């Protein structure tokens, strides 16, 4: 039994090494400096401090150069992919969007918005949008509009109607 357990720990360590700082990552680091490409190699047990928001920023703020969403998607850590949306035709996209918007708006306009909760729902919303964006070939400007609109609402500076109309416009 002891040998098996030690073997498990050795294999586990090697896999961690491979997924955290595997040869592909090092090759990329040496070949060309590219932050987006450096994100991906994280396994389930590694830690990943990034968020969709951070990922989104990192994908759009490269001197105005637009980075294709396929590359952003490929930069998701596997742990993110595990929970990635299984976006199929059975699922009513617009219905989901309505639910998301309704919930977010309710939170934003409540007398005491819980930022933790909003942050949580915001992540879900961003992921819906990433998926919708991929389907509809969103460009980064549309995502910037979404982000800015959301941030404005977070600061309670814009009206519900404006937020809703912007969402409708960009989708």
């Amino acid at each position: 039994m002891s040998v098996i357990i030690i073997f498990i720990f050795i294999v586990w360590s090697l896999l961690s090494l491979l997924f955290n700082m595997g040869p592909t990552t090092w090759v990329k680091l040496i070949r060309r400096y590219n932050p987006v490409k450096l994100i991906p190699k994280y396994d389930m047990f590694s830690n990943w401090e990034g968020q969709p928001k951070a990922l989104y920023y990192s994908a759009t703020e490269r001197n105005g150069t637009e980075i294709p969403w396929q590359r952003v998607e490929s930069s998701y850590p596997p742990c993110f992919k595990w929970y990635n949306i299984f976006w199929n035709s059975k699922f009513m996209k617009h219905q989901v969007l309505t639910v998301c918007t309704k919930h977010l708006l309710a939170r934003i306009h409540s007398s005491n918005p819980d930022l933790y909760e909003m942050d949580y729902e915001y992540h879900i919303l961003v992921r819906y949008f990433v998926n919708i964006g991929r389907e509809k070939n969103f460009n980064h400007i549309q995502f910037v509009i979404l982000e800015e609109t959301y941030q404005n609402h977070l600061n309670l500076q814009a009206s519900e109607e404006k937020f809703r109309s912007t969402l409708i416009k960009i989708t």
Partner: protein
Amino acid sequence: MVLELFEDSSYVINLITKIVAIAAIITATQSLSHFRSLYALHGLLEWRTLRKLHRFSHIHITNLILDRFLDTRGIFLILAIRLIASVILLFFHLSHLWSSIMIFIIFFSLALTVYREIKFLDAGYSFLLMLCAGLWVQSWSPTSHMVQKAFLFFLSFQLVLAYTTLGFRKLSQLEWRSGYAGVTIFRDPSWVFRRFLHLGWNSPDLVARSEQLLIIWQLSFPLILILGSPYYLIYILVGVLFHFVNALFMGLNVFLFSWLAAYPALIYTHTWLQQHVLTL
């Protein structure tokens, strides 16, 4: 000396188990205190909505099993069981078998809640999962000195790798290198407590320089294994301070305890390396 205690692998594993239990208590109490908002009965955060986002949502049998555990009632039960198991693990001196069972319960409940909460697997939870899984595997042969040693080496390796990887990732991004990312975080009320937001606005240089020092510390973390006795303790103190600051400013309590739980293993590994390898 206190440090001599860390030469005893059984003592170190027992200490790690207790810290893991504290981290598990925090996860359970935090989730239970936010229960109504996190596991709402209706809407976006309801399991029947969330499960549509999961990759295996189209498999009937998976849903059949998970529905029992992850609906609102099931998740409450899981959190309560985790809380009880971790309290027992922390306060009672258990036999190896019962200790193993409690650790497995904590691991299983953590894995289920992580699966349900689709946000992302954060650093605290992912490290805690790894710790619980490792402790459980180690508990299959709890008295074997070799297994204990292998587990502690494994844990040290994971910790060193995690810090170094984070350091490299930060170094590779301009926002982190320049310190801008830290300043942004310290201006965002969804990250930092409101009472500390003034740091981001009033002392951006301090935040940015601290972040750059953090990157250097993370990148050079592997040195901890070869540094001599007084110097490696500085690395450990900086690490403890870093996690405490995160907990204080951002409320990352799980991150604090789950990562600090691996520090005893690091001290053990360092001592062993000093005695058996570096003296050669």
